[in-house]
């Protein structure tokens, strides 16, 4: 047999052997056997010295060709084997991907905070800045300067917690603010003669037994706009926009005449009930309407007490609840859940 034929035979045997190498170890053995330092191809290459001179170049070329072909075949075979071995290993590592994950604990903002932030955002869009006033107030700010003198019937609207001690002179007596309205006077006195657009959020307190529907502590957000040409239609426009942003744009708003000592004219604003769409339900007491704010044009006496000449300036004010709208939105029936802080309740928001 010629050297050439023998070379081709080795080539074919190597290719056939390669097919039987089913693991990377078998493949390594195959590589040693054919391509290693003492491998068969290497041995073939050594025969070149015993060959006729004229055959040598052709033989050498062929050996190199076959060597390259086998190396390529080995590489692609290796790739296939590695891949299938990896696949096998990964399959063995499979887990139950539906197992509950390692818990990450997440905190929750109190529902009141979330509602307050919503109100801040909505009124910020309309240019209202947040202004804060104290919880413990002077009688003068909570009542007298708001056009509610002592023994005035309007004081019946607020059951008041009075603070012990201090100056017991009328006006200087201290109390827990019954509403956020005293902040109106404070904001006006601080900012005069600038025009004003502020909201006054805060905790308020009333001498009321704690029941499903009433709390002795609650939040309010008061609004106040003072300028040279502020009007009742501005109030209606502002509150309608508020209602659209807070309750939904498709809900109608209605305005009723009302009474507050610090506004004149005074109104109350209602929005169509979000629970029954105005059909009437227990939440809206079968009226189809939910009260969203008491409001009105700032009384000239209050404007003057704040330092603004009522012949030149006008303003509107409104007071909105915080817990009530949240209760309406989520169908919460018991106001005690807010400051009873049952975490099972608070974590739902």
């Amino acid at each position, binding site marked *: 047999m010629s050297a050439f034929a023998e070379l081709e035979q080795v080539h074919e045997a190597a290719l056939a052997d390669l097919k039987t190498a089913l693991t990377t170890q078998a493949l390594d053995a195959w590589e040693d056997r054919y391509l290693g330092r003492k491998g068969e191809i290497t041995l073939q290459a050594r025969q070149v010295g015993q060959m006729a001179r004229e055959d040598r170049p052709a033989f050498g070329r062929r050996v190199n060709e076959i060597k390259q072909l086998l190396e390529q075949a080995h590489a692609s075979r290796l790739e296939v084997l590695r891949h299938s071995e990896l696949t096998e290993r990964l399959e063995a590592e499979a887990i139950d991907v539906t197992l509950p994950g390692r818990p990450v*604990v997440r905190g929750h903002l109190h529902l009141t905070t979330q509602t307050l932030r919503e109100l801040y955002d909505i009124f910020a869009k309309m240019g209202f800045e947040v202004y804060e006033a104290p919880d413990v107030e002077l009688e003068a700010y909570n009542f007298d300067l708001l056009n509610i003198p002592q023994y005035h019937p309007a004081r019946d609207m607020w059951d008041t917690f009075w603070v012990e001690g201090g100056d017991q002179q009328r006006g200087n007596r*201290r109390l827990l603010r019954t509403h956020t309205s005293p902040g109106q006077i404070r904001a006006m006195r601080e900012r005069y003669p600038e025009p004003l657009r502020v909201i006054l959020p805060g905790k308020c307190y009333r001498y009321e037994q704690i029941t499903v529907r009433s709390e002795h502590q609650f939040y309010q957000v008061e609004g106040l706009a003072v300028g040279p040409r502020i009007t009742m239609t501005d109030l209606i426009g502002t509150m309608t926009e508020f209602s659209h942003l807070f309750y939904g744009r498709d809900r109608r708003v209605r305005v009723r005449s009302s009474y507050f000592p610090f506004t004149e004219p005074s109104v109350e604003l209602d929005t169509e009930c979000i629970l029954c769409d105005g059909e009437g339900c227990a939440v809206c007491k079968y009226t189809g309407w939910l009260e969203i704010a008491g409001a009105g044009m700032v009384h000239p006496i209050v404007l003057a007490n704040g330092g603004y000449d009522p012949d030149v300036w006008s303003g509107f004010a409104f007071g909105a609840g915080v817990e009530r709208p949240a209760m309406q939105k989520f169908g919460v029936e018991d106001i005690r859940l807010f400051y009873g802080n049952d975490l099972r309740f608070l974590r739902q928001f």
Partner: protein
Amino acid sequence: MKIPLSWLNDYVKVTDLPIEALRQRLDLVGLEVGGLEVIGYPGARLPWDPDKILTAEVVSVQPHPNADRLVLAEVNYGGAENEIVVTGAPSLYAYRGESGLHLKVAFAWEGAELYDGHVEGWVKSRLKKSRIRGEPSRAMVCSEKELGLSEAAEDIIYLPDSTPVGVPLVEVLGDYVLDFDIKGPFGHLQSVYGIAREIGALYDRPLRQNPLGAIERLNLKAAAEAEFVDLEIADPDLCPRYTATMVRDVEVKPSPLWMQLRLQRAGMRPITNVVDITNYVMWELGQPLHAFDYGIVSPRPGSSQPAIIVRRAAPGEKMTTLDEEKRVFDNDMLLITDGEGPVGIGGVMGGLDSEVDDETRHVLLEAANFAFLNIRRTSQQLKLHTEASSRFGKRVDPELALPAAARAAELLQELANAAIDPVVIDHYPGKPETHTIDYDPQLADRILGIEIPHDEQTRILRALEFGVEPEGATWRITVPSYRLDARLPIDLVEEVARVYGYERFPGTVIDEELPPLRRNRPLEDEEHMRDLLVGLGLDEVITYSLISPEDELRLAPDPERPLAWPGDSVELQNPLSPERSRMRRTLLPGALRTAWSNLRYLDRIAIFEIGRIHFASGEPDLARAETGVAEPRHLSMLVTGMRRPLWWEKGEAGLEQMDYLDLKGIVDTLLESLDLEDNVTWERGHHPTFHPGRCAVVSYGDQELGALGELHPLVREAFGLPDQPVLVLEWDLELLLDAAAASAKYIGTLSPYAPVHEDLALVVDEKTPAVTVRRSLLEAGSPLVQAVTLFDVYRGEQVGEGKKSLAFALSYQAPDRSLSERDVSKLRARLIKAVEQELGAKLRGA
């Protein structure tokens, strides 16, 4: 205030208006209808079937052949033949054997739904054909209870003689009762007539009866004096007007049905005609009246003429009021007295002794006016709130006194066969001037933002009985005497606006420049803090600001070591209960109580609160406004229970419960978020509320931010918490936010060179805090030492008794070069030398 529609209908036609439409209109103009009770009509608790429940007439009464207590009544109900009805009504029993009667009754056919008169409570039943003791019965005559009118079930209801026969009962007795919820001190809206007047103006309908015209109808004369009583107003500042009417020979008896029904529907209990009439006129006109038994009104000493003196009480003067309470008065309370002493508190309540009763023969009728603020003061001081004081407290028109007295006299004449003296004594020292307002109708345009035509404004004001002289730019408006609330031009704007109708107002966008814009940094920072804490896994709570003094004491279990408060507490004069009597000076009781209530349901609690504390402070910087009360914001945190929620893979045994380091970890991360981690100092704390060995105090500069640690076991017990570590923190949020604002940092250029990492294990005294070693390394290695992280704590034989080994991972980096081996070894030597000199630390294994 409840007002039957039928009553309103006496003065202005309203029964033709759909009730819901009327109600809505009233709501919109400020006459809020808080409730609506339907009687007899569809929608009522018991609607009266108009085909089956009719008016009828009992024409004869015969004995029942088989029953002693029953009778057979022959009833004409308007049908072709009279119906025989079996009944046990006691009043009909008295007519046994009589015929030719005309007793008007309420009659129900079989099939009618009625309340069962024989069982307790309100049980509906349908009338069925039956035999009663052998006599057939397919109809009945009804009691008030069976019709749902009252609880009276003993006897049947009799209708007025003038009632037509055979008409649906609902047309005669059906009604709607409007429950008005009038906000504000509006005396003129506290009466049926006052509301009728408003409705007349709203619907442009004339008033059709004048209850104020009884003076003319009875031909009464007002005079300063008369024989029957010697009247004196000694304190006219508290009593602007007092009238006395002499009513002789009253026949005290029950009022007629129509008046009883009206009073009942208005929410009052009928008593006798005399009392009922004073109540009726109060409801009708809004003027409280008082009837004295004339026989007990004593003369002054030495006189025989009964006397009424209206005067301030002598301090400590006493009287027993109608409610049988003994009252003691002060010098600012106004009494009605006779020659001997007090017979009533002016405008609040009469005395027990002068009350009208069945024996009363003559009545002295008081219709007066009192200073409203003083009435309110007296009523509040005595804690005595009556219909009269409530009305006077909302201001009653003094002009009303005389017409109301005459109206009551008219009714007493009609319903109690009384004789009225033609002269009424009228002292009127406080007669007010007619009030006028100069009104520029353009004010309405300026305030309202829409133009309401001036003739429309005139029409509205006139409909509300204001006098309008629309001449020139400023109109002269004459205010009706009863509109005590209308004093300023702006008050007229409101009248115009509400009657014009807010539903006709558009909404507009404020057409003005925005005020100068400002940020509210304190609030922004506070909200940011909330977000950070929620991000750290804490739930926000908001607890009560009012707490119990006991809870403050519970925080200091050792009486020798009371808590140091920043100032005196703010106490309430009138707390709801001792548990809510003091403004909190700490957030901890709220946190601990929240933990307590939640541990009933949850095994893991991690909460925070950001809120204000309150204390008296003389420092003007601290006190908000001029109240002398400081209200700084505080931050509290509380964690307790399972380190992580229940999960299927077990954690490290023995480490399931959260401990001090869980809270510390939260705080470390928080401080890092605020760039404060390297700017605060940690020290062992000695706060009485905490476990003495597990409490830290954190400071920024010389300002103490606050404490954190494990709750003292005695405090834990005092708050009823279970035996597990409860970790709490309370810091001054104002200081923390100031510190964060001051230390916001920027590292400068970031080094592009790789850092060198190495570990150092240092053996120190057990008592040396890890934070001190770390700080020492950072300071000695500055600026090349970038990070020092504790990664192991070892105690044992290898390091010796009273010692511990702290292993730190350090990273070194220079901004401008790669550090050489030489750099690193020099740095290492410097670090080791520093901790050795400062803290006596030794390199472990060295």
